[in-house]
């Protein structure tokens, strides 16, 4: 409130520099309500389509196998290499392979196999990498530098090559595949989680918790993890693509999933020799991989923005000004 006397000019001689901002009261204005994630997803058409595709793939992987029974393996040699057609029922829709096996059934089966390698591998590396990273980042010091150095070592070597060498020494089985993929991807989460934890450990609320004598395990779990989790999940979505691609490559090269099991990468490899006569055996599983990975990438790009409070507003903008994508974070590169 202005004072009674009008001696304002004296103020101009004051040696103190005074911010106008100081004159303002401290009351913070009400923030506009934060839009829900579902609505933001609906507004970004590409991300919405991506989410639907991922959901369909997940449902097929979960419920597809019981529905098709043994059709993925049932051979009908007189129905060999039939092109896609509408005349042979659901199972003939996408044609047959050289042994007369239904492509629809094989694709469903391959979806389940591919995801049963990729999802556990991603979850393992997410859990182990995040735990180690949060622990290292929160404590800092020697624990941090050792963890980071180990991550550097693993990351500085092509993951396919590690997998190739290990699968040479051990036998290529689904379990070994999951393990090797999980190990090679741990550093990605370790780095991300460490960066987040190192940033958070100096925040006031962590200090406060420490002052109350909360054990560091609890601080990490209650205060650090919830804040780091959205970032880690985004990285995991993107990493899911990478793991899937690596599994497909290994299967394609013949050192991943072994017949009679079937995965998308293996299907492409099996179809290669019939490329000139039966394109559908190679093209369709490849398309399945591309659709899934592109969807996951688009979804991850959206999630990066949606879970970042500083950037979330971009998704609520009218169409003309909305950015479509965020760059791939450097830690995602193999």
């Amino acid at each position: 409130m202005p004072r009674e006397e009008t001696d304002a000019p004296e103020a101009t001689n004051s040696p103190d520099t005074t911010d106008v901002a100081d004159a303002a009261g401290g009351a913070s204005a009400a923030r506009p309500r934060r839009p829900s994630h579902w609505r933001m997803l609906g507004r970004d058409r590409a991300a919405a389509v991506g989410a639907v595709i991922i959901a369909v793939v997940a449902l097929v992987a979960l419920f597809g196998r019981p529905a098709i029974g043994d059709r993925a393996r049932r051979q009908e040699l007189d129905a060999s290499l039939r092109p896609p057609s509408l005349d042979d029922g659901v199972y003939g829709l996408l044609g047959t392979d050289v042994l007369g096996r239904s492509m629809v059934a094989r694709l469903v089966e391959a979806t389940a196999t591919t995801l049963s390698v990729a999802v556990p591998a991603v979850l393992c590396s997410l859990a182990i990498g995040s735990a180690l990273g949060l622990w290292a980042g929160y404590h800092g010091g020697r624990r941090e530098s050792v963890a980071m150095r180990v991550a550097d070592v693993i990351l500085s070597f092509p993951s396919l090559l590690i997998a190739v060498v290990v699968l040479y020494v051990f036998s290529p089985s689904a379990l070994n595949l999951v393990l090797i993929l999980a190990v090679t991807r741990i550093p990605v989460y370790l780095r991300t989680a460490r960066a987040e934890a190192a940033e958070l450990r100096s925040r006031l609320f962590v200090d406060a918790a420490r002052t109350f004598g909360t054990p560091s395990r609890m601080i990490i779990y209650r205060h650090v993890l919830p804040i780091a989790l959205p970032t880690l999940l985004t990285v995991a979505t993107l990493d899911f693509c990478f793991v899937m691609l690596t599994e497909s490559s290994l299967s394609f090269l013949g050192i991943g999933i072994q017949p009679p099991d079937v995965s998308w990468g293996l299907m492409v490899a099996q179809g290669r020799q019939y490329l000139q006569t039966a394109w559908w055996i190679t093209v369709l599983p490849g398309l399945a991989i591309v659709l899934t990975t592109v969807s996951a990438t688009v979804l991850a790009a959206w999630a990066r923005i949606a879970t970042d409070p500083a950037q979330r507003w971009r998704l609520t903008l009218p169409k003309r000004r909305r950015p479509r994508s965020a760059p791939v974070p450097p830690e995602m590169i193999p």
Partner: protein
Amino acid sequence: MIPFLRTRILSSAVPLVCVVLGVFFLARMTGNPVDLYLPLSATPEQRAEFSAAHGFDLSIPVQLWNYLTDAAHLDFGTSLRTGRPAGEMVFDAFPVTLQLAGVTMLLAVTGAVLVGSLAAYRPNSPIDRIASLLSMTAASIPDFWFAVMGVLVFGVSLGLLPTSGTIGGPEIWVLPVATLLIRPFGVLVQVVRGSMVTALSAPYVKIARSKGATPRRVVFGHALRNAVTPVLTVAGDLAVGLVNGAVIVETIFGWPGIGKLMIDSILQRDFAVLQAAVLMTAVTIFALNILVDVCHALTDPRVRQAVPA
């Protein structure tokens, strides 16, 4: 600059040492390394003979010493398949892969800098959106499928390009390089775009514009060199990842490079060659990391002075 390089060389050497030791112990972890070297059909007598000839019956420290001195002399044993020294086979294959990878990285980096800068100059413009969506797709297409599709469309259906082999004119390069290119290009476009958006919104870019600099001067004279640090890091990592791609591309197109050599030696269980190829790759990656660090120091004066912990 010198202390900086020394630190970087030391820290880049750690992975190299790990790989060298890793290969040694991995071979012995599964029990008898002789099983790795010899075909499954080998008789017990052959195994014993081989074991004695290569010192696998000695103690582990002695074996390690022999392994290290042999590796230092580039002696990696003899290929079971061809009877040639494994080291020689690797040195024959290496230039093929190096050429392929070099051409690919050159194209990927120049292309990505142009496309990424163009996209970043007007964020959210149609150009930016198309570039972003295309680069995301490019980064998520499986390279082996892309190669097979390339063969199907350009080789089989249109008959424009050869489907395999290294004999012929420039057209033999098209499909292999394109296959290797898509992923690094897709990823790099996104990285260039991201760091250019950041650089272009920096105050020093505003100041450059306030001096009357043209858009070209602003982008290439001021922003690009600041945006280059993350691009270099990622390009280095992608170059390491090219080994993954080389395995695929060389297998599909029948190029006698190091990737094909590795896959062949795995499928035919030729451990001496595999070991030589892996060690050679590790050394190359070590050199590559040093090269990236030198580039960092050249582009950023702050890096030259700081000695990383």
